């Protein structure tokens, strides 16, 4: 697989087995001092190398080196062995172009970003006598942020379909009086907003009384009750019982539908009634 590589950080050094390498030749290029850490997402401080997720840094040295990264886990340092090594890809600072470079040093290391953040590379020549022999390279790594999993879309409530507007509105609440209803159902059943709306919009029955009711499933009918409401109750009772301890029956003309009240808010009930009445 083609690896995207970066501009190499070339280090020069002599190759003497016994004597420590001349520190003046370790680096083939100026090595900037370690800068202050850059906050994630910020631009690297001057002198700090920026390493993107699709780039390589290459460390090339004529001396035997140990390359350490501090802290661990920000970059991956891979010893590639002795050159010549030919690498094709994008190099840090290369402007995003794919290039082919050949590295001939005795020690060649590739550095890749694992995650975003600052890191310091410590280039320790074999046989170093002290801290002065160690070269430090500051890098600001910008790894490919993991693609977050898609946020689950909250279930959009499905608005119940009202009966086709255009006819006379009649409404029944069929609710067991001794059942433990959810508090929102109790609010809806006792809602003055709903009552006021239905008083205004429902068809008028005998004596001019609005045709909406709250019935218990065991309601007994007297002689004076609206025949239409009695019939609507009889026709919808079985379905209402299937919907649970509290149900809403909305009839527009001869089109009547039954909805469970559990899970509906007072506002949703009002919305449904308004749509049924053609007010929305």
């Amino acid at each position, binding site marked *: 697989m083609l690896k995207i590589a970066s501009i190499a950080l070339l280090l020069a050094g002599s190759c003497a087995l016994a004597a420590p390498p001349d520190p003046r030749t370790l680096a083939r290029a100026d090595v900037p001092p370690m800068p202050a850490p850059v906050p994630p997402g910020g631009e690297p401080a001057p002198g700090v190398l920026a390493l993107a997720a699709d780039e390589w840094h290459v460390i090339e040295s004529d001396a035997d080196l140990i390359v350490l990264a501090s802290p661990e886990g920000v970059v991956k340092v891979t010893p590639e062995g002795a050159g010549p090594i030919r690498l094709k890809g994008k190099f840090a600072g290369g402007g995003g172009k794919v290039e082919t470079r050949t590295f001939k040093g005795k020690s060649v290391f590739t550095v890749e970003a694992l995650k975003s953040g600052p890191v310091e590379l410590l280039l320790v020549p074999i046989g170093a006598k002290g801290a002065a022999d160690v070269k430090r390279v500051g890098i600001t790594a910008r790894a490919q942020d993991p693609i977050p999993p898609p946020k689950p879309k909250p279930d959009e409530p499905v608005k119940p379909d009202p009966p086709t507007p255009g006819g006379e509105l009649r409404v029944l609440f069929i609710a067991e009086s*001794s059942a433990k209803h959810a*508090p929102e159902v109790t609010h809806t059943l*006792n809602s*003055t907003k709903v009552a006021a709306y239905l008083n205004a919009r429902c068809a008028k029955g005998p004596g001019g009384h609005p045709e909406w*009711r709250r019935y218990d499933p*065991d309601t007994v009918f*007297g002689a004076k009750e609206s025949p239409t409401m009695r019939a609507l109750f009889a026709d919808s009772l079985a379905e209402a019982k299937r919907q649970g301890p509290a149900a809403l029956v909305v009839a527009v003309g001869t089109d009547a539908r039954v909805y469970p009240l559990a899970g509906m808010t007072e506002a949703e009930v009002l919305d449904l009634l308004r749509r049924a009445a053609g007010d929305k």
Partner: protein
Amino acid sequence: MFIISDSTPERDLVEPSGMSRGLDLSGRPEGFGAYAGVAEPLPRELVVPRHEWQARIEEKRQRRTRTRDLMTLAKLPAKNQRSIPYCWIFAPTHCMEIIRLKAGLPMVSLSPASAGAQIKNFRAVGGWGREGLEFIGTRGVVPSHLWPDTALDRRYLTDANKTVALDYRHTEWWELRDLDEYISALLHGFPVAAGYNWWSHETTTVDAAWIDGAIATDNRNQWQGYGDDNYFHLQGRRMLPDDMVCPRVAIAS
């Protein structure tokens, strides 16, 4: 807001001139506050825990889903027992008017005397709410335009009125046994006919309330001109009734 609490002086508890009381629990077979087994008790799963009372009361108030809000919307008039000692049947009758309102049924003024007079053989004597509501469940009440609210007159006891009364019965009711059941019934939206032995008086409780950090009740009296449109609050030891009955479902008529 008129509140009757433990410290309310006796002079503020006296009925206005021309009014009467009438609660008399002496004839109650089961005694004070005991469950008679005539009506269903409130199911235990409907008892609302006390730590929820305040929040639920406040939510009902804010959302205007209290029984009193519905009564106000409908402009349900208060009853007036005048000088007959029939508080014990006026309160259950007003409860019947309220549950009809909640059912979306036409508003009909109902005559307490039409039931009370038959129970007490047309005598102006005391009684208690449970006996009144028990009668209403079997024989019903007559609309006020057919039998005046305070008329203890046998002329109104016609076959026609007896037939009409059958349309104004309840079919389901509770006897409440303690404070938790009482407040729970109110929180579920049911009115309660509540009799207080300390007061020898029965009134209609329409809602639970929360006043100055404590539970209270919102009540409606049938003394004309009392409180705020006959509404008042009870709190403290005087709040808990000795007779509590709660009609839930009226015949649809």
